[in-house]
């Protein structure tokens, strides 16, 4: 890695950290649930109970929040710093993964920058939502798995442990786990590295460790007298309830009418929200929006990546495509509403594909450092433009008029 790339990566990381740290203790609409999770974390650790939160989601988020509180204090900073740090570090993890998958630092840096300024990721990196740490652990797990596939690592245990942490945060990953294990076994077979010992090792690392970590996070609940059989029935109950949930089950009126169909994510610009304050020529807004200039490139970029992966026999890229496909399809095909914040877990793949696509186009048409610099600058400027709007700060109505009127936020 060249010195200039190191500096760029560091600058992207600092940008990510700064955008997530500024105004961390302020009240924002998307932080309204934080107090509920903070109280639930205490209740869970002391009594094994989930109130005032829902019991249907995995409880590792409470343990992580408690650890954050112990490190940074029992205040808004303490609650949210875990997401700030892990959200910012996700940018770095995405760079590592991108460089490993595409053997190209420029793709990794561009993907990292896209994620650093991504409105939804920025917003939820300043809350206690579990999508942020889950994505971080998942990406690192994938990085270690790809390194193992390439023969650069001898063990899958770190990958399994990190996958377990992601899995224990949110139910986004069972299909990804199945795809990952199948892909790994097929790749090992193709390389002549599949044997009973390597197969058992892969299964132990990627299935047993995540299951063990998931189980362990329920220790406080099980201490209330529950058996493992009751634990499995509870998981089945939670699944049934999640499947039966509709938009009407969400307490927040804002979310009840928010875009909730994952099939729209990458084919329509999504700008949703409402005005919360008007002060002369400026206004404040509750906004939930996609970074649509990038999101709309997802499908062509994924197709391009698939073509290149096939042509160059790039297994890492093929694995990323397979994981994106299974994770996105679960959102697209599920019956319950999927709000934009759930997209956080597939966005790293989106940004990898789009970055690879754009950087490849530049290379194809002779674009040098200037065109790459222009791409990064344009992305940075766009991200900084969106930042005050999506973080509920007062913005100039005229400066944001096209976006606001397009999203129906002002008449």
């Amino acid at each position, binding site marked *: 890695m060249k010195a200039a790339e190191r500096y760029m990566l560091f600058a992207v990381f600092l940008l990510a950290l700064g955008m997530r740290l500024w105004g961390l203790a302020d009240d924002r609409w998307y932080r309204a649930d934080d107090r509920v999770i903070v109280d639930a974390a205490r209740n869970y650790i002391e009594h094994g109970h989930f109130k005032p939160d829902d019991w249907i989601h995995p409880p590792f988020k409470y343990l992580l929040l408690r650890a954050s509180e112990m490190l940074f204090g029992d205040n808004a900073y303490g609650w949210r710093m875990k997401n700030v740090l892990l959200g910012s570090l996700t940018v770095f993890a995405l760079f590592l993964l991108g460089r490993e998958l595409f053997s190209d630092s420029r793709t990794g840096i561009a993907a990292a920058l896209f994620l650093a300024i991504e409105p939804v990721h920025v917003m939820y990196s300043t809350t206690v939502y579990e999508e942020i740490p889950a994505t971080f652990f998942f990406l690192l797990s994938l990085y270690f798995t790809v390194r193992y596939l390439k023969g650069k690592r001898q063990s899958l245990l770190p990958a399994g442990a990190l996958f377990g942490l992601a899995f224990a945060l949110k139910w986004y990953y069972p299909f990804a786990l199945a795809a990952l294990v199948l892909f790994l076994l097929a790749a090992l077979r193709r390389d002549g590295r599949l044997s009973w010992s*390597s197969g058992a090792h892969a299964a*132990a690392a990627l299935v047993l460790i995540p299951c063990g970590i998931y189980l362990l996070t329920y220790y406080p609940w099980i201490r209330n007298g529950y058996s493992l059989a009751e634990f499995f029935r509870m998981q089945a109950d939670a699944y*049934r309830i999640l499947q039966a949930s509709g938009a009407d089950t969400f307490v927040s009126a804002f979310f009840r009418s928010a875009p909730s169909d994952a099939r729209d994510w990458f084919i329509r610009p999504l700008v949703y929200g409402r005005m919360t304050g008007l002060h002369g020529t400026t206004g404040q807004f509750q906004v939930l929006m996609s970074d649509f200039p990038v999101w709309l490139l997802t499908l062509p970029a994924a197709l391009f990546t698939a073509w290149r992966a096939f042509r160059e026999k790039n297994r890492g890229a093929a694995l990323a495509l397979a994981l994106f496909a299974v994770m996105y399809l679960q959102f697209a095909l599920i019956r319950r509403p999927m709000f934009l914040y759930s997209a956080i877990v597939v966005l790293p793949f989106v940004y990898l594909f789009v970055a690879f696509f754009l950087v490849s186009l530049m290379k194809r048409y002779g674009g040098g450092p200037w065109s790459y610099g222009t791409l990064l600058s344009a992305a940075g400027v766009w991200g900084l433009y969106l930042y005050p709007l999506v973080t509920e700060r007062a913005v100039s109505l005229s400066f944001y008029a096209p976006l606001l009127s397009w999203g129906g936020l002002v008449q």
Partner: protein
Amino acid sequence: MIGAKARKRHVFETLLVVLWLAGVVLLLWRAGTGGRAVLSGRHVELVSEPRLALAQWEKWKVRGRVLFLFDRYLNAEQRDGPPDADNYVYLGIKNGMVREIYHVVPDGAWDEVSRTLGRSRWAAAPGKTFRLAIEEGAPVVIARLRDIPLTGETALVNLNADLWSEEQLEDIVRMLDEGRLRSDLVTISGRMPGKILREFEAWNEGR
């Protein structure tokens, strides 16, 4: 092909993971069984209202238990504060005394109960029972007396005698006597025929 060194490493790490997982399962099993406080012997407590069962559970320091509730309503309204007729079972869950409920509904109410639960998207209907999960993931199995699934675990019993015929009360006593439904603490409210009451009281004398 993988070398002997890599194979050894794979085997070692696989065994390590299997042992670790076995340790996790053992730890959780011990935590689960250790979280239950069961009384020695059988105890019958007569209370004036069903909600006073909560005070008896507190008095006897039970923890992490299955409750067989013979009553019309579940009485698990999510409300903190002093226990009343509608929230005492919820408080039992919240305070760690009850972890699972078998709600036995009088036959006369079954049509209404099954109609309501049949329409609910939150309830599952395995066999002749319904299954719900309420606060804190606590499962509730709802059934008629004749369809109660028996767990084999020593349970708390809270019986609202006003809602059951003499014949049904005799059935309940028989279930308890024969050990088909094992209980260490039975709380009874409502009017109970003297003959049956004496059977219950004999338990206290014989303990």
